[in-house]
């Protein structure tokens, strides 16, 4: 990334002592000089502001109100947040633990898994690589809800379901399992489906990152006494592709949030005993079923804060120290 020169840099040190007004004038002149550049950025900037920045700001505003989409919102201050953390039993007893488990498996576990798969693919000759990369990537191309047709039929709760049929036939179980209405299974099935569909652009970024590592580094590593492939991965591959890993990690958070509606697609909403209710579905539950838009916005803001914290954590792990 070429660091854009600080604005004061181009004026030289001779004018460093000049007043604030001169600085402001120089800045305005610099802005005017780049008016065409701003024009280039304007269409995206407008869409970005109206449909990304503004909704976040408005969401924070709504979260402090009681709002039902019909009447004007009433200001209630922190009440929605207080309710969320003290009285919303479903949120505290189901949604938070579910989200934590879902995020742990789909996030870190899915991330390590896609790194391992990408690494294995990179060890094969060119000819085989593309086939396997496609096999891993293809599931992420399926639009979420459309694939519910497969999972519903596969996990049907009587003996006509594929999985039940095979488990019965091979003698693993005595009677069919009600996969989708049993709260012990639903969340695990959602996790499985999400990992299945998670090898998207983040995975391809990792693959490209591994393939891009300078081959000479491995030669140099051998001379320095690296003896196993595991050491090679840990001391050479991972450090040389940290930027791609950070991108992949961010994409895996996005994928995780996108796929958290899987339970809704499998069995509708709300899921049995709230077994598949995650933060995103909790927002939809309050926003579009109960029309408590203020409260739903408070949950959204909580999720946004969680995501920002996660982002900071990831940056701390993946951004090389010397560039900080």
């Amino acid at each position, binding site marked *: 990334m070429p660091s854009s020169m600080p604005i004061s840099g181009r004026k030289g040190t001779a004018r460093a002592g000049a007043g604030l007004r001169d600085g402001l004038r120089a800045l305005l002149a610099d802005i005017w000089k780049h008016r065409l550049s701003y024009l280039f950025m304007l269409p995206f900037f407008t869409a970005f502001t109206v449909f990304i920045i503004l909704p976040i700001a408005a969401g924070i505003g709504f979260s402090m109100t009681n709002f039902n989409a019909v009447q004007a919102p009433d200001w209630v201050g922190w009440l929605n947040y207080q309710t969320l953390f003290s009285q919303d039993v479903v949120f505290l007893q189901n949604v938070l633990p579910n989200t934590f488990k879902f995020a742990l498996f789909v996030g870190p576990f899915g991330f390590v898994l896609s790194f391992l798969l990408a690494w294995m693919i990179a060890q094969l000759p060119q000819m085989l690589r593309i086939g396997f990369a496609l096999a891993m990537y293809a599931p992420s191309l399926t*639009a979420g809800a*459309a694939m519910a047709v497969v999972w519903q039929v596969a996990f049907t709760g009587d003996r006509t379901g594929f999985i039940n*049929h095979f488990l019965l036939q091979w003698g693993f179980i005595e009677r069919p399992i009600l996969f989708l209405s049993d709260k012990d299974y639903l969340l695990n099935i959602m996790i499985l489906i999400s990992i299945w569909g998670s090898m998207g652009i983040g995975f391809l970024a990792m693959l490209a990152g591994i393939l891009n590592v300078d081959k000479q580094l491995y030669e140099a590593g051998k001379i320095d006494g690296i003896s196993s492939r595991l050491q090679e991965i840990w001391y050479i591959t991972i450090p040389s592709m940290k930027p791609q890993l950070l991108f992949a990690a*961010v994409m895996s958070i996005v994928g995780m949030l996108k796929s958290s509606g899987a339970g809704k697609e499998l069995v509708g909403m709300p899921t049995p005993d709230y077994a598949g209710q995650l933060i995103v579905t909790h927002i939809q539950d309050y926003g579009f079923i109960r029309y408590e838009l203020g409260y739903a916005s408070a949950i959204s803001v909580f999720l*946004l804060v969680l995501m920002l914290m996660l982002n900071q954590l990831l940056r701390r792990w993946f951004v090389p120290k010397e560039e900080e």
Partner: protein
Amino acid sequence: MRKLRIGLDGAQFAILLVLTLVSVFMLLPLVYVVNQAFKPLHELLLFPPTFIVRQPTLQNFVDLLAVTETTFVPATRYLLNSIIVTLLATAGMVVTGSLCAYPLSKHRVPGSKLFFGAIMLSLLFVEEVVAIPRFVIVQSLGIMNTYWGHVLPMIALPVGVFLLKQFMDQVPQELVEAAKIDGATEIGIFARVMLPLVAPAMATITIIAFQTAWGNMETSALFMQEDSMKTLAFFLSTLTPNLSNSVVRQGAAAAGALLLFLPSLIVFLLYQRKFIATMAHSGIK
């Protein structure tokens, strides 16, 4: 180490074995959809359930059209909406994204660092999280039930600007300066120098934009109250609840899932090399 005919050593052979098993797990549901989509009714009802279709038929695709006859909106209308929305939204995402990435990469514009920082943060953005304020905004813009209501909310694609900017950073600044000395206008430099050099990245974000628009259900669910304005992806998602009770709909839904999946797959297959080449520059530093 003993070499196999294609030049694999022992470790590679083990890797090949593991990857083959994982690939089977990954592809099985897709193979299943393809088979299910072509199964005639009596095979869908068969017990024990079968995996591979024996007498392929197009009946499910016909049924898919028939499901909609009762709702006054033919499935072809949903398909037409999907095509219009996907074309407009993809063009919008690619044009605005590339226009924005160029000055971010090559001009030292005041404020651009801050803007790019905001774009990097918004890589995390998932529209589902702020669906409610987006609904309020679209409503107050008066674009509910119009194609604008589909297209405009999709246009800002932060990951597109990000990937293009990273790729444009690889183009030497000297090329841009040289074109400027030769008297090229900014638009000329952008169109004739920059775009051809970043063609792989353009292809990549076109694919990502296409997939985003083609599979999008959010705009139909939230911003379109009239059925005649909804898209194929959304229509198919309405077929899925309680599928295990309706075998006829299972076949139709599988046919629909296949229709949704194939265009994305074909577009990806056409450009996969460029895609992986672009991803090498996807790093966040």
